[in-house]
């Protein structure tokens, strides 16, 4: 990739597209940015960092009780054991779902999200409907995802107002006894680690 990979017809360039390109050109010409660094940043978050990282963390927690204990006690260190750390994941807290408690993560004020384990957030996570309703009507939000929890389940919503980042550890689905971590990880969906979904059924 080069710094200017806009391969469309020029008439299709939107106003924002044009402004972004103009600014990138100015910054490159002035030597403030190295286009190769930009490409590397994009590649990192488009290809390398994503919810597969978090799925590995969750699967390991499901399979390895000692790891689970470390994760719940100090998620930042336990997650770093697997090589995931850094930007927007400097301080991570793992939230355990139980039969009586379901955790959901939101950032009402902006879009805070645990990048090293989940990648960049989806559009809905950053949207006004999610940010406005997750704290006041989480069951209504879950319904938007097709999920209904028992009426008595405690719903605990975590609003990411500081640099703390939250990762939900969903409950391990029944029928997966004896599965290896790699296979378990395939059950862990992104949404189940935000709290708007449940893991896949085996």
């Amino acid at each position, binding site marked *: 990739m080069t710094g200017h990979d806009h391969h469309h017809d020029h008439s299709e360039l939107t106003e924002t597209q044009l402004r972004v390109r103009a600014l990138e050109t100015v910054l490159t010409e002035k030597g403030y940015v190295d286009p190769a660094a930009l490409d590397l940043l*994009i590649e990192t*978050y488009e290809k390398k960092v994503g919810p597969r990282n978090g799925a590995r963390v969750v699967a390991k927690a499901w399979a390895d009780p000692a790891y689970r204990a470390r994760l719940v006690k100090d998620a930042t260190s336990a997650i770093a054991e697997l090589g995931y750390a850094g930007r927007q994941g400097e301080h991570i807290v793992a939230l355990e779902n139980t039969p009586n408690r379901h955790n959901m993560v939101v950032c009402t004020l902006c879009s805070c999200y645990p990048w090293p384990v989940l990648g960049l957030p989806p559009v*809905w996570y950053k949207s*006004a409907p999610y940010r406005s309703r997750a704290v006041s009507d989480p069951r209504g939000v879950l319904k938007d995802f097709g999920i209904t929890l028992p009426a008595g389940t405690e719903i*605990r*919503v*975590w609003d990411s*107002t500081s640099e703390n980042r939250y990762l939900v550890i969903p409950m391990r689905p029944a029928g997966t006894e004896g599965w290896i971590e790699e296979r378990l990880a395939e059950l862990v969906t992104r949404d189940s680690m935000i709290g708007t979904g449940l893991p896949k059924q085996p």
Partner: protein
Amino acid sequence: MNGAQDMGGVHGFGPVEPEPNEPVFHAGWEKRAFALTLAMAMPGQWNIDMSRFARENRDPGEYLSMSYYQIWFAALETMLKERDLVSDDETVAGHALREPKPVARILSPGAVAQVLYRGGPTERETNTTPAFKPGDHVRAKNINPRTHTRLPRYVRGHAGTIERVIGFHVFPDSNAQGAGENPQWLYTVCFDGRELWGADGDPTLTVSVDAWEPYLVPA
């Protein structure tokens, strides 16, 4: 500030609409806007709290009419202009028109992985002790600053319980204004849903926020 970004509890935005197989970026310019924002933090010398304030500090109608990366990009433009790194006429021309202002360093491709891995930890050393401990009852102060704060409107004035002492962290309310990191003790505070939303609220709901000590008083 009580801007459009402070959305907790606002009605009328409609359903959440997850997009099947959503791509990481929805257009080429989104990738560039994202990467430029990350890359310019190094020569621009701004901190994340300043970035957040630059994003939220706009007319609420405008905020709500913009897409996510449009807001990022607009904030980037604002910060570059404020620091005399890029001027309006250069943005219009799409080219550099004057000598670059000297900057300490820029992000090199070789440093990207390390910079991302290191991130920007906000915990700081201290020899002070936290005023609250888990289980303590606290009340979020009623504050309405025009400047950046991370205390959402929907918890202000409400009583909760300290759930966790997180540590001693950079205080965004100061940091966003360039008034120094002014680190403070940071807590996770748990609120009952009915405390926040009234007697008719969902009795199974609890909401936790991370709150710095200056946001809290004993309840």
